[in-house]
């Protein structure tokens, strides 16, 4: 059977007919063309597919589409405002927090949620927030520094 759902992605509603077992990462990438949300481990470990569900980070590889019905999903494509990068995106650029970039959207979403909830996190709060996102290139230091730089 299929289920009719409405996914509000980056503020825009999408009415879709989905298999109940379809994951949001697949829908974002394959049906909505939002390929900034990356896919890797498919078991919630790596964090590459992190999106915000009602402002909180979740693994979109473990999020079934019907469970997101009617809820707000935000992806990396929704971080810009009027074509301008968010301060966090800008900080990732200037602090060298991006290398291969595959983990970057996941880190951006995780840190965006942190900063919205806690605009002045301490370094250990930053580390705690991103502890579940894997990066194989940077060693995390510059990612942490980038987040720290926008805490005002």
């Amino acid at each position, binding site marked *: 059977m299929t*289920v009719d759902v409405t996914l509000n992605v980056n503020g825009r509603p999408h009415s879709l007919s989905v298999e109940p*077992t379809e994951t949001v990462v697949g829908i974002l990438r394959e049906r909505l063309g939002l390929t900034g949300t990356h896919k890797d481990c498919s078991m919630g470990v790596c964090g590459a597919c992190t999106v915000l569900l009602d402002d*909180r980070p979740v*693994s979109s590889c473990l*999020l079934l589409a019907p*469970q997101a019905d009617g809820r707000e999903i935000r992806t990396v494509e929704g971080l810009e405002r009027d074509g301008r990068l968010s301060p966090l995106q800008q900080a990732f650029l200037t602090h060298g927090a991006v290398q291969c970039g595959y983990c970057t959207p996941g880190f951006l979403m995780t840190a965006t949620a942190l900063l919205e909830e806690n605009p002045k996190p301490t370094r250990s709060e930053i580390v705690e927030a991103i*502890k*579940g996102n894997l990066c194989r290139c940077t060693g995390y230091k510059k990612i942490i520094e980038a987040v720290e730089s926008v805490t005002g």
Partner: protein
Amino acid sequence: MSCRYTAARTTAEAVEALVAAKGEAHVIAGGVALVILMNEKLVEPSWLVDVSRIDALHGIDRLSDGTVRIGAAVTHREVAESEIIAEAFPMMSEMAAEIACGRIMNKGTIGGNICLADPQGDPPITMLALDATMRTVGPDGRRDIPVREFFVDLYETALRDDELLQEILIPPMKPGSITAFGKYAARKAMDYTSTISAAVRLIRGAGNGRIEEISLGLGGVGQTPVYSEALEEMLTNVRPSDEVFGRVRERLFAVMEPIEDHLYSANYKRHVAAVTLRRTVMKAFSGTWEGEGVLIR
């Protein structure tokens, strides 16, 4: 293969679907365990019963007798942030705050975790130490299952196919109770295989020089989340000492059968369990703790 999907709004709707599915349904709340299995093709559900939007499965409340009620679909994050829980059972707050990472805490639920009955699970052993009751709902109505009867075998609980875990009831602790939770993991985050954990509730006596009473749960040491009356007995009415913990360790080695995995042998796990238990008991008993959060190191 096509899959049916029921977005239940009430426990009655959920139970109706479970009955109709004749044991073929999979209940999904947060989905963080089930969807991994689906992605790995280890489970191909033919009927998903989504209980995440049932009001009765939400909320954390203190009842008039002091019992704390936690809805089965309450997320780990909600447990970690609940003032009621922080006040009543501090170790549960700490434990929930250290489950995997934020992404998983935001989605995974306490009920889902308990029903998974993973021997490495953290919430189940806090239930064991706190003597909680699992309240289920099924076609014949409610059933209250003491947690010590709930975990039956590897990934198997006393829950029947047509039953749903609705809420968890945790009785108020006896006055003077202190709790502590301790976890060993290879890394400092995200480990969920090969973890060893201990949940402890104890009361001190004799001018705080003895353990008067203790209840505990151990994770990662058997086929299920484990409690041990024998260990509790060994740690009751004693002054905790190297000798006492030596006996506890011997007992652990004699009776515990941890699952050997890709990281660690059963013997190493027994060793770690003994250390984890001792450090966690001492955390409750004397406040000494060199760990970070609930991590024992």
